[in-house]
């Protein structure tokens, strides 16, 4: 048998006490130096596959594993932990939970110390990793003060210190903003091309990822397809709708431009156009700039008014600096910005969870400093990122009923049934909220905020960590809510999602300040500063690069075609 990086033969796996296989008859061969992307719907077994490759299954989880698993020629069932770690390094979904030590430097050498490397070797590898990942400014820092992106780099450094041949990352982009995601992907590409590491990335967000991949595997308990991303994207229609795969805008664009093969990045599309001397004529002279203007709301139409808002946390961090904004009644607003820009801090002022250090926030004319959270919550339904922070009742029905009763609404039973029906949750009414899928959990959290009919709905990063199909479902729900006349405010750094949402106003935050406010077209085509170019949807970057943005300003491929 030729030694391969990964050799999975007829793998079927059952978690302990489960009769349904999490993976069913998987055969997968990965050669050294490949860059593989594994995608597929939530609950399709992607994380289980990662655990098998990393040896966590069966060593930690138990359960029933049929078939053979070889990693770099090593039978994972019989191998000791040191042999596994030296071959395959894994960065799991939530880096914050993987950091064990208090100081970054201690974390970076943790595996090496456990595996009894010598002091000299550890010191040499520590310096190497610090230089490679640019961690010198963090080396003496405590780990509990790290941002999400920093925590991920520390975990990656800790894994790379052992010098594994294979690197496995489970949803590494889920909580990163676009620039941080781009940096990580560039680094993985460097490891793959320069250091010849085999890279396996499990991910939903494919827009910026696929251009680096040599293979795309779609997994839904079984392998649905396996091949070069171009082949998969050209051969399988509707993989987005069926398997929740995010087809990059560039690939959709290739059909419009008449290319035979799907294009995997905007840069590639531009190169091809240049090579083929291709130009696009629109027949449109100039889009009327008035159509992009955001109208100011009359006083009586203001849903949320923020005036000179400053928020300083107890540790002295100035999270918000002189924020001024108006959100009109019935408006669909997105607050965008990188990690740590102050998005969540801002929306926590909308229902009084945070009070201004300086300045004022009015919600439907009420000064939030003078009202309790419970009073403001009657007007503002808040949906936070993690639905698990809400659930504590036995079933979905009781969960939503609890909110209805807390808000003292009349005809609670009727309202709960109505909202369950509207959000397609009626068949799950008597299931435990912990047993349902991630998308369903998010819908339950939204239902809980909608049941008492608040005028304003605020969502914090609603698309973080969910697949494309669920994003489309979520968008549908939000649009329907918005059409009933409610004001929708959401924070996000998912620009591709934003390109499809009927957002009327975008507020761009950067390090606690508003740096731009306007319609999506104004923001993306005119006002977004150069250093935030990665926050533009792919299509906007393309249109701007070919100089068509004077004539037309599409946000998504449908608008571009039309």
């Amino acid at each position: 048998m030729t030694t391969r990086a990964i050799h999975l033969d007829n793998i079927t796996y059952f978690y302990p006490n489960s009769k349904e296989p999490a993976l069913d008859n998987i055969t997968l061969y990965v050669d050294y130096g490949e860059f593989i992307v594994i995608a597929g719907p939530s609950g399709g077994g992607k994380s289980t596959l990662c655990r098998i490759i990393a040896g966590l299954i069966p060593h930690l989880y138990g359960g029933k594993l049929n078939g053979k698993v070889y990693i770099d020629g090593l039978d994972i069932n019989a191998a000791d932990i040191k042999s596994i770690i030296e071959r395959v390094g894994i960065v799991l979904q939530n880096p914050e939970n993987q950091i064990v030590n208090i100081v970054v430097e201690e974390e970076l050498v943790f595996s090496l110390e456990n595996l009894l490397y010598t002091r000299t070797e550890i010191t040499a590898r520590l310096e190497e990793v610090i230089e490679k990942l640019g961690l010198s400014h963090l080396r003496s820092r405590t780990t509990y003060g790290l941002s999400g992106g920093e925590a991920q780099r520390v975990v990656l450094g800790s894994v790379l210190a052992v010098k594994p041949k294979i690197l496995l990352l489970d949803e590494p982009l889920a909580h990163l903003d676009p620039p941080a995601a781009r940096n990580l992907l560039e680094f993985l590409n460097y490891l793959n091309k320069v250091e010849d590491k085999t890279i396996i990335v499990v991910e939903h967000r494919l827009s910026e990822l696929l251009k680096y991949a040599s293979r795309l595997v779609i997994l839904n308990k079984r392998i649905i397809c396996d091949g070069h991303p171009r082949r998969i994207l050209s051969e399988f229609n509707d993989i987005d709708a069926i398997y929740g795969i995010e087809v990059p805008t560039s690939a959709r664009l290739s059909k419009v431009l008449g290319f035979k093969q799907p294009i995997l990045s905007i840069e590639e599309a531009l190169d091809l156009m240049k090579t083929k001397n291709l130009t696009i004529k629109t027949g449109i002279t100039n889009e009327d700039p008035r159509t992009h203007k955001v109208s100011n709301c009359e006083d009586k139409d203001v849903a949320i008014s923020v005036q000179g808002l400053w928020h300083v946390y107890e540790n002295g961090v100035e999270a918000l600096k002189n924020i001024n904004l108006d959100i009109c009644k019935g408006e669909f607003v997105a607050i965008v910005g990188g990690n740590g820009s102050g998005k969540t801090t801002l929306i926590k002022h909308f229902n009084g969870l945070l009070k201004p250090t300086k300045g004022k926030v009015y919600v439907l004319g009420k000064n939030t400093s003078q009202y309790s959270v419970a009073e403001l919550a009657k007007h503002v339904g808040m949906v936070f990122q993690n639905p698990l922070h809400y659930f504590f009742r036995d079933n979905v029905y009781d969960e939503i009923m609890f909110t209805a009763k807390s808000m003292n609404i009349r005809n609670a039973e009727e309202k709960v049934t109505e909202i369950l029906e509207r959000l397609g949750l009626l068949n799950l009414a008597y299931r435990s909220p912990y047993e349902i899928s991630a998308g369903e959990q998010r819908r339950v959290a939204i239902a809980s905020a909608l049941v008492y009919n608040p005028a304003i709905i605020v969502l914090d990063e609603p698309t973080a960590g969910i697949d494309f199909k669920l994003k489309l479902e979520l968008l549908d729900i939000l649009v329907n809510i918005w059409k009933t006349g409610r004001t929708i405010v959401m924070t996000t750094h998912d620009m591709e999602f934003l390109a499809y949402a009927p957002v009327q106003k975008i507020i761009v935050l950067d390090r606690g300040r508003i740096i731009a406010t306007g319609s999506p077209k104004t923001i993306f085509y005119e006002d977004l500063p150069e250093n935030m170019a990665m926050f533009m949807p792919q299509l906007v970057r393309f249109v701007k690069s070919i100089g068509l943005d004077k004539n037309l300003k599409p946000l998504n491929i449908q608008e571009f075609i039309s």
Partner: protein
Amino acid sequence: MSSRRFFEVLGSSLVYESRESIFIKLSIVTKIVYIILTSITAFLSDKFLPLIILLSINIGLSMIDRAMPKKIVMMLKGLSLFIAMIFLFNVITTFLLGETDLIDVILHQVLATIRILAVVPPLLIFISSTTPLQIIQFISRLGVRYDRLYPFVIAYRFIPLIFQEMKNIYDAQRSRGVELEQGGIINKLKGSASVVVPMIVCSTIRARDLAEALMIRGFGYKEKRTFYRTLTFTRLDILFIFMVLITHVFVLVITRLSYINFL
């Protein structure tokens, strides 16, 4: 001060802080020696003057690091209520049970309090400039297995995260109209389930992730492990111990020379 604020103040004075400080450069052994020497000196000193001098010396030494005085104040602020309660309790019980003079009892309690306060600076220096891993390294030299001690590091690392998560859950529940700070005890107990249950679920997920993280880092691979940092003793350590020794001996000499009761 609300109970949440109390724990925040106390907690922030007790965490390890990464910054440029002489105390971070000192060996853990030096810091332990400092605590032991201060404890012995405080125990042997039974008069006001030497104890006040000892307290002043320790505060003075801690001021080498600019952040320490603030930490000491925060710590004392956090503990002030407890200290006052213990003080009162001791005074009342000693006076009622014993046959001593009330003034004597109060003066004895004041002496005991100053003794405790004198040990606070070296303890805070130790806690805020020593990582739990360094403590483990030190103890494992005494023959204790490192994996038996690691839960201490894990608790230290995850307690702030769990507090943060609790705060987020609390915010999520308040956003749906739950008022945990109002109503009677039964209402509060009922309401607390809305925080406790999600907390348990999220902590269970965290524990699973942690178990995975430990395994894929080779934790417990062998009974022993390497510690990449050595417990070296530098000139700075010698100088510091020398200073502590001189000043503490001075305090003891004053104690022996002082013949007046309490002074």
